[in-house]
């Protein structure tokens, strides 16, 4: 059925509005509602999403990811960061590494999978999707040390995952395809570092330009355009240079907030356009979920699900203990890191491109597990925030 894209958008927004308005009656986060809406109107059921929209999903998701990262970056005021920097740093390193190790080891020794395949799954497992976590925090107006640390961890862990993935990929290729050797590994490490520093560099450079020219903006409309424009530029450049969108946008946000005294008017101007974009993002994410792939989850998938969660919780906990974080962080921070989504898929795609034989297997498994994580993740995050005490109960 060929539906016009504008009609599709209209349907998405109106039904999205209904969800937004009435979702609190079901005690689920709004984004879960949007995801389910997306699934329902997607190709597998009502098929109300225009082809054009579906093919634009990638663009929209990159833009929204950048938006979210940008707003996370806003939290990184240098003095505030001094307080939680150590915790964030340690927790994120440990949970990323921890997950990687746990999943790799479990796959290899318990499931008897070839080492290189286990490595890949381990690397994919370390990725965390920030979008869901951030949206849940906003919706429930979670506030507190736990929330700040969680945001920090979720943001920074992308950097670690980049490195981990780069390394794992290189290692796997060495082992499986007998290509190169230590040189390749070194190259991979270098590439990972370059990506990270490249992203940081672009973010800082754009941040300086943004701040420098900021006095040119005099009108309300101008504010929105200026901020949006720079954001899109940062995402676009990151894409062009194959850098991490998340990091670039986040560093842009962090640079701006630290350089500009009047930063609020810029960040606030995005408020007038962000809700429709977020709505679109999550609904399309749902529409792109292939529920059928749930059947491919199988043993591999189930194992992946379980071991990843274990890795996250244990790794994060160790990091929290070492950095002497408060008890509530120690106990619950791992749960906040459960959501996994597009990031995993992107990474899995790269893996697939590199390994013809097992590529398909990896993709199918990851697609299936992503479905589970996307649906369950937000709910678990909300639970964690609640238990940690950062969501105040309604009186």
């Amino acid at each position, binding site marked *: 059925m060929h539906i016009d894209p504008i009609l599709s958008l209209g349907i998405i927004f109106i039904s999205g509005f209904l969800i937004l308005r009435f979702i609190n009656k079901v005690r689920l986060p709004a984004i879960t509602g949007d995801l389910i809406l997306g699934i329902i109107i997607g190709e597998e059921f009502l098929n109300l999403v225009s082809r054009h929209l579906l093919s634009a999903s990638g663009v929209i998701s990159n833009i929204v990811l950048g938006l979210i990262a940008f707003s996370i970056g806003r939290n990184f005021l240098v003095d505030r960061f001094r307080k939680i920097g150590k915790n964030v740093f340690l927790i994120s390193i440990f949970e990323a590494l921890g997950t990687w190790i746990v999943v790799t080891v479990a796959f290899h020794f318990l499931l008897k999978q070839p080492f290189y395949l286990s490595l890949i799954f381990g690397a994919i497992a370390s990725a965390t999707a920030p979008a869901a976590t951030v949206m849940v925090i906003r919706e429930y107006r979670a506030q507190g040390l736990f929330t700040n640390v969680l945001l920090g961890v979720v943001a920074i862990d992308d950097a670690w995952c980049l490195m981990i993935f780069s390394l794992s990929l290189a290692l796997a290729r060495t082992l499986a395809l007998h290509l190169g050797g230590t040189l390749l590994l070194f190259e991979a490490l270098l590439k990972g570092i370059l990506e990270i520093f490249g992203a940081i560099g672009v973010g800082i450079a754009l941040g300086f330009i943004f701040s420098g020219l900021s006095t040119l903006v*005099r*009108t*309300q*409309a101008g504010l929105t355009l200026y901020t949006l424009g720079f954001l899109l530029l940062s995402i676009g450049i990151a894409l062009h240079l194959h850098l991490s969108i998340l990091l670039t946008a986040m560093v842009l946000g962090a640079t701006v907030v630290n350089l500009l005294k009047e930063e609020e008017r810029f960040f606030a101007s995005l408020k007038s356009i962000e809700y429709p974009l977020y709505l679109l993002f999550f609904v399309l994410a749902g529409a792109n979920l292939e529920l059928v792939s749930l059947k491919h989850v199988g043993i591999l998938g189930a194992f992946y699900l379980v071991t990843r969660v274990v890795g996250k919780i244990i790794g994060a906990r160790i990091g929290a203990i070492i950095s002497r974080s408060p008890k509530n962080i120690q106990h619950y921070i791992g749960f906040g890191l459960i959501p996994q989504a597009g990031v995993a898929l992107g990474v899995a795609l790269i893996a697939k491109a590199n390994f013809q034989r097992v590529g398909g297997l990896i993709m199918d498994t990851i697609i299936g597990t992503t479905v589970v994580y996307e649906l369950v993740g937000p709910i678990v995050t909300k639970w964690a925030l609640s238990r940690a005490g950062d969501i105040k109960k309604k009186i």
Partner: protein
Amino acid sequence: MGKVKDVMKRDVITVTRSTNLRELLQKFKDFHTFPLVPVVEEKKLVGVVKLENICKVFQPKEPEILKTLHFIDERPVNIFEVDTPPEMGYLVLVEDIMDTRFITVEEEDNLNDALSKMRLNNLIQVPVIDKNKNLVGIIGVFDIIKNLFMERGII
């Protein structure tokens, strides 16, 4: 949950249609901010004057219809350069600058609905009317919040 009439301020400074600019400004000469000023005609609420209405005297009139075309540039006005002769104080009447279409709440409305209405319309205070459209008071977001704090024993 209380009603608007329990929390609103009944003692309101009002003006009439024919109040001129000079009298209007005199009433608020010692105020630090310009509140919402209801315009009444024999107890009935017929208009409101807000800060933005007063600022309008600095801008030469452009047809309202232009505001519906959003892609036209916003008008930058340097109020210090605008020519404002003293006669303006007598010639400009409330009638010329007031809003004739405005948001209100009724005294019997409950506070939650009133607050929602204010939030939705980006207002911090609204006039309160009774069933016959007579002005009975004025209520602001702060009044509602204060009331909440009082009920919870915080003040």
